[in-house]
């Protein structure tokens, strides 16, 4: 346990901030010490991000004070924050997509030779050194847009290391990482902390809080509602503080639904491949079933979903849907056959953030909302009624169908995407990381919506890196390096079972490179 001296590195006192009528922070006191990981938890909109934005200079507080090593400071802007040695690693990573990893890592530094010329060699050396510390395996000269989300996160991490930040804030860094990559990140965090850095860690994953954080602060509605130090709290304390519930019974989700005995295959994949990511995938999806795809990031799960959704064409193999051959050549064709996708990146791939709930629910479906059958005029009334209906069915919390989607919470935004497909009578729903970046309560609602969808005679394929959440699945297919490598029977598949399966298969697969490893586990 690190020593806690009397003057914390950063002392925040009575900081308040309102956005219009919304009181995002209502007088928060919090200390961040050097050599310590400080976890922040709370529902979306509880005030964690606002606090970090204030420390990052992106937002100015209405009142309150911030001291750095006992001296009052004002963080007037992002540049000032960087000068103070503060680094921020956001969910939506602030990288320049077409710059290389090296350029991105060294962007905030002032590595220049005489007369202000860009010091290419100095930057390269600095980036190389950091890449070694982080154990980065990819080519540092590649533009970051060609890197996976996980690797991009590592580039952002590398930037914090290069600038030798004294204070590093991370907002859900593991939400796009596999377990292996997450472990690598934790090792780096521990190294940072050992060097005296103060780390702030925001997450929705309670396991990570327990594993990583020396102190935890729980936010609720703009206030601090609980503080814990390592070792003197239980998961139960944390969950109760988070939800404000009185007992755990109110919090625990419903038991996984039972699947009726006779299996009616809806979607079948036979040796589908699309190198390099998808090598050989076969499985069948039954009616009423939630089928999980588990595997590390980059195993090919998203790519399989893209093939089913008609976004990519398979190089080999074939599929059937409802007993008929299924080879969609375009996304609209797949949608026309009843396939739906809730994509990985909600903001950039699923929603018109500036637009209304109505516009988002009906996105891509205006052709079905005609005023007259044969005239191309759309009916605003029908569109609005659909949005309202979906809002009710999925209990979306919104002021009305005209509400701008960007003002909704992450969970409600995701439900809007669900509503889009529900309203189009899709029968196969592909969920790619549906609960990323949403809080515990909204997660349950999202899975609840998926269960309801399946129980109405439809089918769901769920890709989720949070393995514990795949417990809602009736079956889980393990995917390793583009091949289906095993199957776990649910309901109630546990995280340990899945981890064990993935790692044992992964280990044997990497031992016998190129060998076909197929088998049933669990």
């Amino acid at each position, binding site marked *: 346990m690190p020593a806690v001296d009397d003057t914390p590195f950063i002392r925040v006192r009575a900081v308040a901030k309102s956005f219009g009528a919304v009181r995002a922070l209502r007088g928060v006191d919090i200390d961040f010490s050097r050599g310590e990981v400080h976890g922040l938890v709370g529902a979306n909109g509880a005030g964690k991000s606002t606090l970090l934005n204030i420390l990052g200079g992106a937002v100015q507080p209405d*009142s309150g004070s911030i001291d750095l090593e006992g001296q009052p400071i004002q963080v007037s802007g992002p540049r000032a924050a960087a000068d103070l040695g503060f680094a921020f690693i956001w969910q939506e990573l602030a990288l320049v997509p077409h710059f290389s990893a090296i350029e991105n890592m060294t962007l905030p530094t002032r590595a220049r030779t005489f007369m202000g010329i860009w010091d290419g060699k100095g930057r390269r050396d600095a980036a190389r050194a950091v890449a070694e510390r982080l154990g980065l395996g990819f080519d540092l000269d590649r533009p970051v847009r060609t890197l996976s989300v996980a690797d991009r996160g590592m580039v952002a991490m590398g930037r914090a290391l290069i600038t030798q930040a004294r204070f590093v804030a991370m907002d859900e860094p593991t939400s796009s990482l596999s377990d292996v990559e997450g472990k690598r990140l934790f090792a780096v965090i521990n190294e940072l902390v050992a060097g005296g850095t103060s780390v702030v860690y925001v997450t929705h994953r309670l396991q990570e809080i327990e594993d990583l954080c020396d102190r935890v602060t729980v936010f609720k509605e703009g206030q601090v509602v609980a503080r814990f130090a390592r070792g003197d709290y239980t998961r139960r304390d944390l969950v109760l503080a988070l939800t404000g519930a009185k007992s755990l019974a109110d919090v625990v989700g419903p038991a996984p639904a039972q699947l009726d005995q006779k299996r009616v295959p809806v979607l079948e994949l036979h040796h589908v491949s699309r190198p390099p990511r998808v090598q050989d995938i076969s499985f069948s999806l039954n009616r009423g079933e939630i089928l999980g795809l588990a595997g590390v990031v980059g195993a090919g799960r998203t790519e399989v979903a893209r093939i089913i959704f008609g976004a990519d064409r398979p190089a080999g193999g074939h599929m059937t849907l409802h007993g008929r051959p299924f080879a969609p050549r375009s*996304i609209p064709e797949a*949608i026309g056959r009843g396939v739906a996708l809730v994509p990985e990146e909600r903001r950039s*791939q*699923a929603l*018109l953030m500036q*637009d209304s709930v109505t516009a988002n629910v009906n996105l891509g*479906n*205006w*052709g079905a909302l005609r005023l007259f059958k044969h005239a191309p005029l759309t009916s605003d009334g029908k569109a609005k009624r659909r949005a309202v209906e979906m809002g009710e069915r999925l209990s979306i919390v919104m002021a009305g169908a005209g509400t701008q989607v960007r003002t909704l919470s992450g969970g409600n935004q995701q439900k809007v995407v669900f509503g889009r497909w529900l309203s189009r009578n899709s029968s196969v729903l592909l969920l790619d990381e549906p609960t990323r970046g949403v809080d515990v309560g909204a997660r349950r609602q999202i899975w609840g919506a998926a269960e309801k969808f399946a129980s109405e005679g439809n089918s769901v394929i769920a890709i989720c890196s949070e393995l514990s959440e795949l417990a809602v699945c009736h079956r889980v297919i393990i995917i390793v390096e583009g091949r289906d490598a095993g199957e776990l029977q649910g309901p109630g598949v546990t995280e340990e079972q899945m981890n064990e399966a993935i790692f044992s298969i992964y280990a044997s697969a990497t031992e016998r490179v190129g060998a076909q490893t197929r088998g049933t586990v669990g």
Partner: protein
Amino acid sequence: MSTALDEEQLQQPTFINKLVPRIGRIATISLGKYGALIVLALLVVLFALASPYYLTPTNVLEILNAAALSGIISCGLTIILVSGLFDLSLGYLASCSGILITHLMGLGVSWPLAVLIGIASGVLTGLVNGFLVTRWHINALVATLGTGSCLVGINYVISGGAPQDVSENAGFASLSIGHLLGIPKLVYYLVVIAAILWVILNKTDFGRNIQACGGNVEAARLAGVRVARTITLGYVVVGVCAVITGALVASSIGSGQVTAGDSFTLSSFAAAFLGSTVMREGQFHIVGTVVGVILVSAGFNGLALLGVPAYAENLFSGLLLICAVAFSSLGRSLSQA
């Protein structure tokens, strides 16, 4: 102890403390949303005070008449701007189609058929632009600059650089010249085409999809919008509007002029951007574009009445555009802070 006092003031807002930011907020929001309208109102008042003739019905109709041609092509451009893309070829298309139509008429083709062929050439240009942008993935600015340049070449091949006189064709002239119920014919074209485009943009699948592409093209694609088809159709709409403008210009001046429509490229972009500051914050929309065009026209007219030399018009429209857009983004950033 001044800090304690400050804190107290912050924590217990007085009436004035509450009121001032509220007025400021409303003012900044209005500045962003209604900046262009306020400028228009100010201009009208100013010119009306300076010249008693300014607000007479005849002059107001003249202002609208002068705005009509630019208005039609600008409304067309608005469609593709809403989708998040550009079209730099439209002014050259207006010139080229005017030449094409008048040249065909010179060859003895009846004017309605010539206009139809002209419109077909607009559709074709739109298809080519759409194809280049959506299938060959050429940057929209570059692709349409390329087609625009090609159109200039085609224009000279057809005309040899010479004007094509059609002033003796009374039918073609009556297309644009004259009044209907006391209102200049061109004003009807503007009203009807702006109305049609407004309906297309706001009340059809195609318009919704165009807006979705502008909002988030990846989300639109993954929701099943046929993006390439939608964008291509958007370019076709721009092409048709450009040809209509080109035909009306030729009709009103009685001849096809090689560069008659070229200046519309700049003026239509200016009008659409000016319009993006009207009532909505930085979004392109038809009503805004119409207001933008009228604003420029009202300004030109007033300056002419005051005897300001014609070259000052460009200076005026340039400054107007810069000021309106600057006000709008200033208002937006203030109201968000």
